[in-house]
């Protein structure tokens, strides 16, 4: 009893140190998304470079993606980390037959197109979310963000911040491969 009491402060210290140490390894800007495993918010939005109502290519309707695994990447030309991330998106589009949909968030379409001309365009569909309405529905709070949506139209994974080598190889590609094996 006596020894247990004497060891109590040490025990409290160890527990506190564990929690504080754990806190150091977590990224406070990375919030768990409430969308995970839920149906992805549906939207239809103009394609980049075409004004709303322009019949040349029609709007992008998210429901059209049902039945396949797809990736939604939220980016902007004003976003610094997007430049870091871009080569890995290009690499993803080359490595896997998965449509990467680029949602151009609160951006000037001309700036966006110049940016893509300079850095390469990995996107299967390029969408214009000038007002950020789609981003709001998807709970976007920091650009870039990357979502993976499964065949049944559920959000299965969210990556906040720029995708790097480790993120691509250890997370995105294995998750995409696994989801493509699943039957909806």
């Amino acid at each position: 009893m006596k020894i247990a009491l004497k060891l109590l402060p040490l025990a409290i210290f160890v527990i506190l140190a564990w929690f504080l140490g754990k806190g150091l390894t977590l990224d406070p800007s990375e919030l768990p998304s409430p969308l995970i495993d839920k149906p992805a918010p549906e939207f239809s939005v103009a394609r980049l470079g075409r004004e709303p109502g322009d019949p040349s290519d029609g709007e992008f309707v998210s429901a059209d993606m049902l039945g396949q695994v797809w990736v939604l990447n939220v980016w902007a030309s004003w976003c610094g980390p997007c430049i870091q991330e871009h080569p890995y998106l290009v690499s993803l589009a080359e490595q896997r037959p998965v449509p990467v949909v680029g949602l151009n968030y609160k951006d000037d379409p001309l700036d966006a197109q110049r940016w893509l001309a300079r850095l390469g365009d990995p996107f299967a569909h390029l969408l214009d979310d000038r007002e950020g309405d789609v981003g709001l529905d998807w709970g976007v709070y920091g650009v870039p963000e990357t979502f993976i949506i499964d065949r049944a139209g559920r959000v299965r994974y969210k990556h906040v911040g720029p995708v790097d080598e480790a993120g691509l190889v250890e997370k995105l590609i294995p998750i995409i491969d696994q989801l493509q094996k699943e039957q909806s």
Partner: protein
Amino acid sequence: MFRAGLFALLLFFVSPLWSAEVIVSFDSQEQSELYHDLLKEYRCLKCQNQNLADSNASLAGDLRREIRDQILAGNGKKEIDQYLIARYGDFVLYRPPFSAKTAILWIAPFVLLLVALFSVLVMIKRQRKRAQIIEEVENDQDELFNMRLEKAKKLLND
């Protein structure tokens, strides 16, 4: 000199324009109050230690606009809470709801208070006991001393 003074004076009038909040109008006083109360309840996701009223981030501006539109459409706190939680999770609320996940947050302070009260009580009890023992020992010693004194007196008288 006069110009500089005038300029400084004018700066005081300019300052409200720099604050994060854009002046918005509502149909009624209640809606306006609800709006301003709600902005203090929600966290800006971008700059996590500021509420929506204080934040200058563009996301906070969008959310303020969304909340204003919802209030004008007749939605109350409950609907707006649900809207924000569905998109950003409980983290958007400064006051998280009571659930299995947050129970420890809500209960821990009261448990700690109880533990503290209990240990203070134990300490007081122990101190009282110690004081009592010391008193008893002193009484015993007094008795012993008196007994010896009497013995000595008897011896002297003999």
